[in-house]
C-alpha cells in the first residue's frame, strides 16, 4: 500500500487478521458531556509513546451549548497515527467511534467509503435519533450500507461492568468513554498497565470515578478480545526516524506559542510580558501563561484588546519582551497601537490566531485571511515583519524567530497562526534554552553620544534605552521624529527620510533568512506554494504526487514580510506556481505585485483546512493543462 496515500484498507470483518497499517485516522465522537476529548487524547498519547507519528485535531461543539444528543452538541477528537510522513490530522476518517446518533450523523460525511464505524448501540434510542434528525434508524434503513458497522451496546455493557459500584445512572454513563477507549486500545494493542496507572493518577481525587473508569476500560478491552466481531487487533507502523534525546511533549499550536514566548524571553535574558484579552481561538495562549509562577513571566488580562497591546507596548518600553495574543477582531482593534509600536520602534510580538471572518464571522472555523490586514491594517506607511506558523510545533519556532527579529530590529512583529493549528497537536521535542538561536538585544549605553534614535548601521535598529537607567532620559511617542535625536519633527525631508528608514529596516530583516529551499526537485514543472497551516496538506500532497511520478515540488513561506530575497528567483525556476491559501488569494496578490508573475492559485474559504486530495486533484488537473 502506498505510504503517502489514504492508508487504511481493512478486509471484510470475517477475514480480519493481524495486519500492519501504514497509518490510520480514528475519530472519537460523542456528546460534549461524553468525555470524548479525554479518550481521544489518551489514545493519541499512547500511539505517540509507541513510537508512531501522531497528529490530532479536536472538534468542539459550536460555542453556544446545545442540548445533549443534538447535532450542535457533538464533540469530536480526531487522531491520525502512522509511521512517518504524517503532517495533517487526516483528510478523512478511517474509523469512527460514535457514542450517539448525532455523533454518527455529523461525522458520516467525513468517513471514507468502506470505513469502519464502532457505535454505541445503546444510545440509538428513538429520542436520540430524533434529536440527531434521523428520520429512520440508520442501523436498519441502509444509510450505513457503504460502511462496515460494528454496533456495540457500550452503554449497557458499561452499566453491567459497573453494577457492583454505588453509582448513579448518570455517573455510570460518564464512564462509557473508558469502555470505548478500552475497546480501541485492544484493537490497536496498547499496554494496559500504563492506562491503569494513568487512570489511578488522574482520578486520584475521586477514587470512585477511578474505579469506575478502570472497570469500564477493562470491560471494553475484554469485549474486544471476546466479541466475535474483531478477529484480531491491528498494528500501526512505527515512525522509522530516530528521535533525538530530549523532552518530548504533545503540544497544541497555542501551547507552543505560549512556550515559544517564554523561552524567547529567557533566551534573551528578559522578562516576558503578555497583555491579552480572551477571544476564540487565541485564549489558550494567555491562559497558558497565566499558570507560570515565574515572576518574569507575566500575563495581564486587560479590559480589551486595545489595553492589551497598550500594556505590552508599555512593558516593551520598560525593557521586557512585550507580547499580545488575539484573533482577527482583536487585531482589527489594535491597528492604532501597532502603528505606535512601529514609529516608537519597540520590540513586540503580536500573535493573531486567525479564525473565519469577516467580522465575528465563524469563531470556531479556521481561515488564513488576515495576511493583508497584518501588512496594511494601519494608516500611513507602516511596515512591520509578518511571520506565519506551519504546524503546531512550528508555532514555537515561529514565535522564537519573531522574538529574535523584534529584538534585533527593534520592531513589532506579527505572527499568524490559525484555529486549525491552535488546538491541533503533535509530539514535539522541546529544545533546550541554549539550542535556541542567539538573541541580539540592543541595550543602549549612557554616554555623551547617546541618542534614542541613533541607529545601528547594520540592522538600522535604534537603541533600547530603558527607564531606570540614568543618563538616557528621553521621551518617545507617536509624532514623527527627527533623525537620531528622536525629537518631534514636522520637517518635510525628515519625514521622507524616516519613512524610508523604517521601510529599509524592515526590508533588511530578510538578510537573516536562510536560503529558500523547495521540497522536491528544484526545477519541478509545478511548484506548490503555501504559508501557514496548509503546510501539512501541501507537503503530503507533494509527496503523493511525486510518488506518482509527477514533476511537483513545494515551498512553504514562514516569512511573509519581508519576502525572502531569493524568492523571485526560486519562483521563476518553475514553469508554474500554484499558490494555495485558505483565503481568496492574498499571498497570490502580494506575489503578483512583487514579481509580476502570472501565478496560479488554489483557494478555499470554507472555514476548514485543505484536504490533501483537494490539492493533489488541483495539481493533477493543472499539470494536465501544462502538457
Amino acid at each position, binding site marked *: 500500500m502506498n505510504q503517502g496515500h489514504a492508508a487504511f484498507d481493512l478486509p471484510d470483518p470475517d477475514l480480519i487478521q493481524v495486519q500492519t497499517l501504514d497509518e490510520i485516522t480514528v475519530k472519537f465522537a460523542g456528546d460534549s458531556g461524553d468525555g470524548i476529548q479525554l479518550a481521544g487524547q489518551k489514545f493519541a498519547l499512547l500511539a505517540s509513546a509507541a513510537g508512531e507519528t501522531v497528529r490530532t485535531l479536536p472538534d468542539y461543539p459550536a460555542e453556544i451549548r446545545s442540548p445533549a444528543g443534538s447535532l450542535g452538541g457533538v464533540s469530536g477528537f480526531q487522531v491520525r497515527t502512522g509511521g512517518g510522513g504524517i503532517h495533517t490530522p487526516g483528510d478523512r476518517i478511517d474509523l469512527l467511534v460514535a457514542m450517539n446518533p448525532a455523533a454518527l450523523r455529523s461525522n458520516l460525511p467525513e468517513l471514507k467509503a468502506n470505513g469502519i464505524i464502532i457505535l454505541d448501540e445503546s444510545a440509538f434510542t428513538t429520542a436520540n435519533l430524533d434529536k440527531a434528525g434521523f428520520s429512520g434508524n440508520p442501523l436498519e434503513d441502509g444509510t450505513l450500507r457503504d460502511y462496515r458497522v460494528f454496533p456495540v451496546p457500550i452503554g449497557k455493557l458499561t452499566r453491567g461492568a459497573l453494577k457492583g459500584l454505588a453509582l448513579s445512572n448518570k455517573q455510570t454513563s460518564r464512564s462509557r468513554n473508558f469502555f470505548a477507549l478500552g475497546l480501541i486500545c485492544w484493537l490497536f494493542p496498547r499496554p494496559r498497565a500504563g492506562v491503569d496507572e494513568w487512570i489511578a493518577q488522574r482520578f486520584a481525587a475521586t477514587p470512585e470515578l477511578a474505579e469506575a473508569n478502570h472497570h469500564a476500560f477493562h470491560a471494553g478491552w475484554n469485549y474486544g478480545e471476546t466479541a466475535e466481531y474483531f478477529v484480531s487487533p491491528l498494528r500501526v507502523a512505527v515512525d522509522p526516524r530516530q528521535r533525538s534525546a530530549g523532552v518530548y511533549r504533545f503540544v497544541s499550536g497555542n501551547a507552543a506559542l505560549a512556550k515559544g514566548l517564554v523561552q524567547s524571553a529567557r533566551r534573551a535574558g528578559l*522578562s516576558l510580558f503578555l*497583555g491579552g484579552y480572551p477571544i476564540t481561538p487565541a485564549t489558550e495562549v494567555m491562559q497558558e501563561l497565566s499558570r507560570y509562577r515565574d515572576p518574569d513571566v507575566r500575563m*495581564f488580562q486587560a479590559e480589551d484588546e486595545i489595553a492589551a497591546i497598550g500594556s505590552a507596548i508599555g512593558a516593551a518600553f*520598560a525593557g521586557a519582551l512585550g507580547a499580545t495574543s488575539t484573533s482577527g477582531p482583536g487585531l482589527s482593534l489594535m491597528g492604532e497601537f501597532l502603528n505606535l509600536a512601529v514609529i516608537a520602534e519597540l520590540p513586540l510580538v503580536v500573535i493573531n490566531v486567525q479564525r473565519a471572518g469577516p467580522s465575528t464571522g465563524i469563531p470556531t472555523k479556521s481561515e488564513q485571511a488576515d495576511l493583508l490586514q497584518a501588512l496594511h491594517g494601519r494608516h500611513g506607511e507602516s511596515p512591520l515583519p509578518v511571520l506565519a506558523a506551519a504546524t503546531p510545533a512550528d508555532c514555537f519556532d515561529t514565535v522564537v524567530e519573531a522574538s529574535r527579529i523584534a529584538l534585533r530590529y527593534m520592531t513589532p512583529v506579527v505572527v499568524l497562526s490559525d484555529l486549525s493549528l491552535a488546538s491541533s497537536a503533535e509530539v514535539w521535542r522541546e529544545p533546550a534554552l541554549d539550542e535556541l538561536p542567539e538573541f541580539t538585544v540592543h541595550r543602549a549605553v549612557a554616554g555623551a553620544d547617546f541618542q534614542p534614535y541613533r541607529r545601528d548601521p547594520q540592522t538600522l535598529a535604534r537603541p533600547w534605552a530603558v527607564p531606570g537607567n540614568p543618563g538616557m532620559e528621553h*521621551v518617545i*511617542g507617536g509624532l514623527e521624529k527627527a533623525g537620531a535625536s528622536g525629537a518631534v519633527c514636522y520637517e518635510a525631508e525628515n519625514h521622507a527620510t524616516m519613512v524610508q528608514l523604517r521601510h529599509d529596516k524592515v526590508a533588511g530583516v530578510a538578510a537573516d533568512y536562510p536560503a529558500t529551499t523547495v521540497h522536491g526537485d528544484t526545477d519541478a514543472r509545478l511548484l506548490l506554494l503555501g504559508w501557514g497551516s496548509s503546510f501539512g496538506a501541501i507537503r503530503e500532497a507533494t509527496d503523493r504526487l511525486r510518488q506518482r511520478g509527477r514533476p511537483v515540488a513545494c515551498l512553504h513561506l514562514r516569512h511573509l514580510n519581508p519576502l525572502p530575497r531569493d524568492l523571485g528567483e526560486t519562483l521563476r525556476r518553475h514553469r508554474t506556481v500554484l499558490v494555495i491559501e485558505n483565503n481568496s488569494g492574498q499571498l497570490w496578490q502580494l506575489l503578483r505585485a512583487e514579481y509580476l508573475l502570472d501565478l496560479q492559485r488554489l483557494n478555499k474559504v470554507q472555514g476548514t483546512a485543505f484536504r490533501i486530495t483537494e490539492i493533489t486533484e488541483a495539481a493533477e488537473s493543472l499539470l494536465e493543462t501544462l502538457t
Partner: protein
Amino acid sequence: MIPITVVPTTAAELPTTPSRTDFLSSSTPRWCPGCGCFAVLKSLTATYARLGVPRERLVTISGIGCTSRLPYYTATYGFHTLHGRAPTVALGVKLANPELSVWVISGDGDALAIGANHTLHLLRRNPNIKMLLLNNQIYGLTKGQASPTSPRGMVTRSTPYGVADTPINPVNLALAAGATFVARVADTNGAMMEEVFAAAHAHRGVALVEVLLNCVTFHDGAYAMITDKETRDDYALVMRPGEPLLYGRQQRKVLVADRGRLVALPLADGEAIPEQALRHDPQATDSSLAQQLAFMAPPDLPCAMGIFRQVQAPVYGLDPKADD
C-alpha cells in the same frame, strides 16, 4: 532575570538636593500664554524634585491633547502615547518594572471620552501609578469641541446649540471605580498641587488627582467662581483630614448630613461648631460620603478641594502569585 538594573543616581549626575529645574527638559513649552498647563508643569517638577526618586526612575506618560504634551517638558523618561490610552501603557511599564515611579498625564477628553474605560480599569485595579487628570472642560488641541466634562448648555465649536449631555464628575467616577486615592486641586494653587502630588506619590496604590485647569483660549474662566479671590471662599471648600468641613468667609458654614444627604449649615457669629458637623475622613473604607462631597457644586454647595479618599488596599502587580 530582572530586566534592567536600576542604578542609583550619583551625585555627579544630579545634585543631592535637586531643584525643580533639574526635572525640566530643554524644550520650551508650547502652550498658549496663560494656559494652566504651565502651573501644573511647575508644580509637578517641583514635586519630582522633592520626592527623592532619581530622575531616571521617573516615567511620565501621557495621551494626546494640549495637556498631554507635558512629558516633553520634563527631564524624566516619557512616553507620549495615543489619545486616551496612556493608562494602558503606564500599567505595562509599571508591571514590567515595579521600581519605576509612573505618572500619567491626561486631559478630560483623553481620560474621560476616548480613554474613560482605561481610566476606570486603571483605578479599579489599584496599581501604584499616579494619574493627573487636567480638566479644562474642553478639547484644547483640536480647537474647542465639547468634552465629557463640558457643562450642559455650553456652546463649543461642535455644539453650536449647546452641550446636551450630563457632564462626568471625574472624582465621583474615580470613587465609583474604587480608586484608593482621589483628590481635586486647582491650577491656581501651586502649593496645594505640590502637597497633593506628594501625597499621591506617598500613597501605596493608584492615585487620581483632578486638576481644574484653565484653558485661556477655548474656555477661559471655567473655574472663576472657585478660584477667583473674590468668590472662592464661598464656592470652594478645602477638606482637611479629621477636621469639620468648613467653608465660607471666615469659615462660617459647615456641612452636616441630613438622612444621608449633605446640607450646609450657616454658623452664627461666634457659634461653636456643632456636634453633628461632618468631619473629613479620607481613610473611611466606605467611600459614599466622599462620593457625596465629590458631587457638590456651586452655587448651592461649595466645590470640595483636596483629598477625598486615601485608603490602603492590595496593590496590583506586586507579586500576585506569591501569596497562594
